[in-house]
């Protein structure tokens, strides 16, 4: 158990509720059993009451008016006004900074996601032309298909023709060669058209399963 000297130091904070819980407990147990410390604690409490009685505040009926009257002739010092102006500028700068960050974020987002967004928007109106190794009627796709597909694109059509008219293997090879040359020239023509900016966008990809190349071209305006 703590001594009276130790507890005596803690009596005031105990009464003020400023001790740790375990200290509060120690003091409380001690005070119950120690008459001297209990008397000191009661003296402190009586002192608090007496001090509240001693210190009285005079009437303050016109106090605020007296203060504001002293303020009237005073202009806020230039230094303070400059500080106020600087503070307001700081607030404005923070607003501008926030707006700038937001705008930069929006621009970056557009730059990063722009092509996808544009493609998405365009795709809704576009009817893609997919060129596969089937028979296509449109000129550029057909040309491209036969060019890329080479024999695969031409064979079914030619095979049918050869079967009916009795074309020989040599003739067939010639026809295939001619088809290749024509398709290549058609492809060059179309690519040069695309390079000249006549198409807004184009997507080309390979389809490994069927060994074909697919070209996606949006509808022309």
């Amino acid at each position, binding site marked *: 158990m703590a001594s009276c000297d130790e507890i005596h130091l803690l009596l*005031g*904070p105990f009464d003020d509720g400023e001790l740790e819980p375990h200290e509060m407990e120690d003091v409380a147990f001690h005070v119950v059993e120690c008459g001297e410390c209990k008397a*000191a604690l009661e003296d402190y409490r009586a*002192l608090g009451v007496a*001090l509240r009685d001693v210190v009285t505040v005079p009437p*303050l009926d016109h106090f605020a008016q007296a203060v504001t009257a002293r*303020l009237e002739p005073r202009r806020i010092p230039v230094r303070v006004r400059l500080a106020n102006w600087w503070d307001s500028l700081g607030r404005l700068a923070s607003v501008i900074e926030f707006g700038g960050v937001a705008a930069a974020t929006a621009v970056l987002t557009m730059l990063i996601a722009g092509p996808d967004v544009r493609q998405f928007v365009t795709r809704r109106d576009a009817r893609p032309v997919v060129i596969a190794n089937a028979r296509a009627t449109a000129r550029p796709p057909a040309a491209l298909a036969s060019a890329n597909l080479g024999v695969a694109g031409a064979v079914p059509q030619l095979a049918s023709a050869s079967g009916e008219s009795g074309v020989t293997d040599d003739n067939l090879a010639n026809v295939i060669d001619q088809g290749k040359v024509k398709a290549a020239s058609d492809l060059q023509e179309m690519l040069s058209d695309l390079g000249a900016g006549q198409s807004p966008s184009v997507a080309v990809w390979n389809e490994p399963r069927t060994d074909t190349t697919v070209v996606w071209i949006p509808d022309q305006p």
Partner: protein
Amino acid sequence: MSRAARLEADETELIRRAREGDAEAFGLLVERYQHRVVRVAMAVVHNQDDALELAQETFVRAYENLAKFESRSSLSTWLYRIAANLAIDFRRREGRHTVLRGEEGEFELGRLPSERGNSFAETARNELNRRLREALKELTPEHRAVILLREVEGLSYDEIGDILQCPRGTVMSRLHYARNRLRGILKDVDKD
């Protein structure tokens, strides 16, 4: 807007307006804190006229330095700190931490609120108050401020330390010293 409604106006808004030179807004802040600021000044100087003058000076200083006020602490704590510093400086400058002497002392004691009753209890109470006032004057401004901010204002140790800008341990030791000094006065009165 009614007076009560105006007093309830957002303190932050009042501070902002006062910073821009709006004396009326600052007047509302004065009305809100005048009693407590005067009590803090009274806690140190224990003279009504001086306390009122110091309280006015506190608000004038606060008005001029509102730009420096940071919202990390409350406005009341900031005002207390200005008032306590002004009052402690005043006491040191004026050398009034000793007992008032002569006619001035008699005059001050006479005008302190001591409603002279006829009963023995009232007489004893008045005598206790008189002795306590004397004892308070003998304390240093720091000890007076600590014990009165605690006992009269009911501030916590941390708040007192914040106002007087001293550690919590210093607050505790000053309180202990002041209480023991004043307790002796109480015991003497009981003996008489």
